[in-house]
């Protein structure tokens, strides 16, 4: 589905991606993890063509995405921050996205699912953060395309909506979609993810099943396993100079 070859990207002097080689082929949920600034969002935005890489290639369904936009009809995307034009109504926004994509969509199910009926005629500027995130989710989930990219999907959701979201993601997985998800909430990863890609300093530091990471670090809990993996790396890095003072 998506294959990324030797991807480099820097913003000014700040090198964010330093040679990423990765394929997302199997259907299932891949959680893209990593500390702040490790390049998760940049990687996702490169796949969507929002960030133009300095070097390397991205293939979606076997075709290079460079200077192309048609491939994006295969991808549903949930952006991190939900901010919409303030004067449009929820209904207008849904019509707008439908108009832009002109693909069959199933918005009604999700309007009911997220309880958005009372807000359909309200202007987006008057909605609360959580409701906006629900609209955001609706726009991403109402299409049935083979690739689904979720950037911090849980932002601002209440517990009920969170449970619905998890069910939705599972339902999409059951349809055999390739799902990429970034998040900082480890319990969500443990519950949903089939596989983890851990980015560190612009490189793929770990890739594999959740269970494999837990076993490798000898921890029962993912949060601790990742913390251990990170601190373990730092200890190695700091040990060498501190020895010279002893």
């Amino acid at each position, binding site marked *: 589905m998506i294959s990324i070859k030797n991807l480099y990207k820097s913003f000014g002097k700040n090198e964010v991606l330093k040679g990423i080689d990765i394929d997302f082929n199997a259907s299932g949920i891949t959680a893209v993890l990593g500390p702040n600034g490790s390049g998760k969002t940049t990687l996702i935005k490169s796949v*969507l*063509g*929002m*960030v133009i890489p300095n070097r390397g290639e991205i293939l979606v369904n076997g075709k290079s995405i460079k200077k192309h936009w048609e491939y994006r009809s295969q991808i549903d995307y949930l952006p991190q921050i*939900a*901010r919409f034009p303030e004067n*449009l109504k929820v209904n207008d926004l849904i019509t707008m996205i439908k108009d*832009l994509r002109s693909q069959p969509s199933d918005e009604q199910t999700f309007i009911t699912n997220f309880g958005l009926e009372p807000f359909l005629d309200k202007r987006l500027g008057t909605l609360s953060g959580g409701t906006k995130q629900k609209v955001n989710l609706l726009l991403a989930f109402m299409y049935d395309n083979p690739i689904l990219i979720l950037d911090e999907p849980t932002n601002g959701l209440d517990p009920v909506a969170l449970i619905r979201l998890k069910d939705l993601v599972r339902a999409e997985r059951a349809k055999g979609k390739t799902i990429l998800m970034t998040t900082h909430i480890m319990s969500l990863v443990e519950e949903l993810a089939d596989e983890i890609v851990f980015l560190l300093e612009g490189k793929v530091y770990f890739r594999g099943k959740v269970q494999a990471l837990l076993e490798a670090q000898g921890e029962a809990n993912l949060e601790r396993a990742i913390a251990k993996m990170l601190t373990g790396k730092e200890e190695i890095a700091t040990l060498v100079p501190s020895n010279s003072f002893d």
Partner: protein
Amino acid sequence: MLKIFKYSVYDLLRSRWSYIYFGFYFVFTTSLLFLSGDVSKIVISLINVLLILCPLIATMFGVMYYYNSREFVELLLAQPIKRSSVFLGQYLGVACSLSVSLLLGIGVPFLIYGILVSSAIWNFFMLLVIGVTLSFIFSAIAFWIALRNENRIKGFGLAILAWLFFAIIYDGIFLLTMIVFNDYPLEQFALGASIFNPIDLSRILILLKLDISALMGYTGAIFKQFFGSNNGMIISFTVLTTWIFLPILAIRRLVSKKDF
């Protein structure tokens, strides 16, 4: 592009600011018509306001709209549409909704007053054309500046500075050069210099149309002497339309390379 354009106009036409902008022109024009019956004089008063206000409002609106829709653009860019369509659609949306406010705000009072049967109809028409052209030029410049600067405060500052430069500073420098190099023949220089400022060009265009040499100023007089009224108008209008396309081309170029 047309779809994006449609929805940005839709969004903007519901914004409070469009109504305030429309209301200002409406009240201003109505009161001018009420106070004085001389349409030519009113056109001159209005042009003086338009030459300053249109660029200023277009600049502010353009920058504001871009920064306001910054996050929403990310959602649009993930849709299967061309990048340049997203931004050109938004730009056209801003420029057109500003133009609609202007056309209605000035047009409606004049229509009620009976401009269609008046002899000044072409002067009035020229006034509207210039207002619309200036809105298109300066919102494009504003979009370009905003696209170049992710830092909103810097973007705002630069946009205002650009407006200040074309509206005031440029004329100041121009006048100073005239005084300093008083002893040299400066006609050609003055002619050339006015081409690089859309506000000056608009002023020349309307004054050539109104044919009031007393108000024409130095460049206007030279323009008239050089090209005659009609040729002068055609040339200044052509250059003015180029002024719309230059920033649009710059936007297209910038957008194809930018990271979001």
